[in-house]
């Protein structure tokens, strides 16, 4: 049985992408317009990153006196890095660890839950499945920010505010992930394989763990990345849930640093520190993308093609 699955798996999982369009005609259809637009878009998205990279090499004086998109008189990246990591006895490191913990745990949890739910919606019929799925679809429309306030009040009554749970628990739920995994599982896990597994005497849970999960790999990575990015960048939820700077993720921590740089009594000119900190805070996400992007693309394509 297992050999049968592994042989079938790649063709099925890969089919939405490889069988999409014949490749021969692509080279001739290259459009100058499209290329220009794409380049412009690329510039639009890359320029802020480039600015961030350049600005993190400047000291405060250069920051305000030199051209934004090129290096200043002094190359102060070293000092800036030192000030980032020495600010308040290196609390920045703590924020990095917190962010990685919140985002990592949430992403793993969210992708597992979404995969299980999506698989169930796709492969089983049970009373109320249509209704439940409609509710899930509806939930995609509600932004997390709108739920933050009710969530806060609820967590407060359980005494969970100002704990790591206050960030992790709400981030475990990903309606969009459920939707994506349902669409993906409907196609990537053929009913015939499930049938075959049943005939071989495997229980439903075992089929899910040993057969389903392997076939769903690219989809899981996609949901994982979505959840990772969402939690990594989440600002509002930790802002209202947390009071202790030792629990802050990078977003809130950096915003407070920025606040300290921008007002009256006791203000510190921390601009270059905040900018360098922001620069560091995006690096792990960039790395995660570089490593996982092929899965991400596959997953996106699948979600887009199927109905």
């Amino acid at each position, binding site marked *: 049985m297992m050999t049968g699955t592994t042989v079938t798996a790649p063709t099925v999982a890969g089919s939405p992408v490889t069988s999409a369009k014949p490749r021969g005609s692509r080279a001739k259809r290259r459009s100058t317009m499209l290329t220009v637009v794409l380049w412009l878009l690329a510039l639009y998205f890359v320029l802020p990153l480039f600015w961030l990279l350049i600005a993190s090499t400047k000291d405060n004086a250069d920051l305000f006196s030199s051209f934004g998109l090129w290096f200043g008189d002094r190359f102060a990246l070293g000092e800036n890095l030192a000030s980032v990591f020495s600010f308040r006895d290196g609390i920045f490191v703590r924020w990095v660890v917190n962010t990685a913990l919140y985002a990592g745990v949430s992403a793993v949890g969210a992708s597992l839950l979404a995969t299980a739910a999506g698989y169930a919606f796709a492969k089983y019929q049970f009373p109320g499945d249509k209704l439940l799925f409609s509710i899930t679809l509806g939930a995609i429309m509600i932004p997390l920010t709108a739920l933050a306030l009710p969530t806060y009040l609820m967590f407060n009554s359980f005494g969970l505010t100002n704990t790591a749970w206050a960030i992790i628990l709400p981030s475990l739920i990903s309606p969009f992930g459920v939707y994506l995994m349902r669409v993906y599982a409907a196609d990537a896990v053929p009913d015939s394989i499930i049938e075959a597994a049943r005939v071989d005497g495997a229980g439903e849970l075992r089929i899910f763990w040993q057969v389903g999960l392997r076939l769903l790999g690219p989809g899981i990575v996609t949901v994982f990345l979505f959840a990772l990015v969402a939690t990594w960048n989440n600002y509002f939820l930790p802002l209202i849930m947390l009071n202790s700077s030792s629990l802050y993720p990078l977003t809130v921590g950096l915003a407070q640093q920025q*606040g300290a740089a*921008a007002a009256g009594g006791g203000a510190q000119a921390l601009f270059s520190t905040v900018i360098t900190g922001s620069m560091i805070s995006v690096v792990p996400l960039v790395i995660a993308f570089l490593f996982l992007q092929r899965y991400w693309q596959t997953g996106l394509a699948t979600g887009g093609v199927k109905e």
Partner: protein
Amino acid sequence: MYHPSRATAGALAGASMIALLAAGCSAGGGEAPAAAQDAVTQEQIDEALSTPTELTFWTWVPDIDKEIALFEEQYPEIDVTVENVGQGLEHYQKVRTALQSGEGAPDVVQIEYQYLSSFTLTDSLLDLAPYGAADLSGEYVDWAWNQVADGESVWAIPQDTGAMGNLYRKDILDAAGVTEPPATYEEYAEAAKKVKDETGSYISNLASNDPAQVVGLLWQAGVKPFGYDGDKTVTIDVNSPEAKEVLAYWQQLIQDDLVSTDADFNDAYYQGIVSDKYAGWLTAAWAPIFLQGTAADTSGKWAAAPLPQWEEGEQVSGNWGGSSDAVLSSTENPIAAYELAKWINNDPSSTTMFANEQFLFPAAKNVLESPEFTGQEVEFFGGQKVNELFAEISGTVDTEFPWLPFTEYAYSSFNEIVGTAIGEKGDLGAALDAWQEDLVTYAESQGFTVQQ
């Protein structure tokens, strides 16, 4: 990517909603503090300070751990946890949310002067007078003490202040033939014209997004736009003839293009400072240090002077910024909490450290009058003794300036109405009328009795 400004705006809106929601849910919040009680005895204080106690202190003063360490050295039984939960409005929203949810509120909390009455309104602050604060009145500059004390009650201990002065670019003013800092507003307007004609720089900037600067200038002119009786009656008089006179003066300078109206505290503003767009800044005692951090390249070209005066020969100033440390009435350790708020703002070792390491401009006379503080020659200002100057100015700040118990609203409404008019070089007198009307409507809708 990460967008602090937009995120902060959203956060503020959201946080205030939470405060409202939480207020609705938590059935009344904390208990009302016991009214005027007997004075605390020295025995009780000694006992409280030698009992192991944990205190939480919310403040955004950077590196305040150093002062706290001094305090803990003095009183080893007291363990203080410092948290920075944000700055300004974000911080206050967090305090209110914690108070209303009945959990997690700190014992001691930093509050700017103009927001104190919004906390006494909700009975959230502990009256420190019975704990010995009433005896401290002589140890702080008068006007700062009046900000924290109200009749018999003392609501906070002054921490730092922002008496206003004129920081200007000596090199630019010299080039325009203005060799003496303008002593009166009349001279200031003449100097503005010379500076603009000769050098192209603006003599200063009147920020279109900063109510505190304009209010500070009104404070100097003796205008009393706000008032609050501590109960249900507020005074709103932002469009008095005196206030209109001040703004009419600025309107003239703005419309003649002699004063710019850029938003302050953003990178365009700092660039303007470095690129000689502005030849000066009517600002506060904390600004000299702030400039050194953002405009290091212009070191040595600056000088400091008192604000121009409305009447020749007078010497009056206003205040912009500064804050105090208050004790929340929900605290379980009021004596220790008061001693913390007092000690860090009163013991010379701590107040001196605030002034020299965090560069908070002191409210405590033990620093203001110390030659070590006033004698410092600042290279950025060409060796001028800037502390000495501002210590003198601090003594000339008009001593009475009450606030509304809803300064947050008043300020955001200012930005929408008056700030917009400043930015558009519009009619500021009409803007003051509109601001007055808006504030009165708001106050009445909140159940206040309004005296105009």
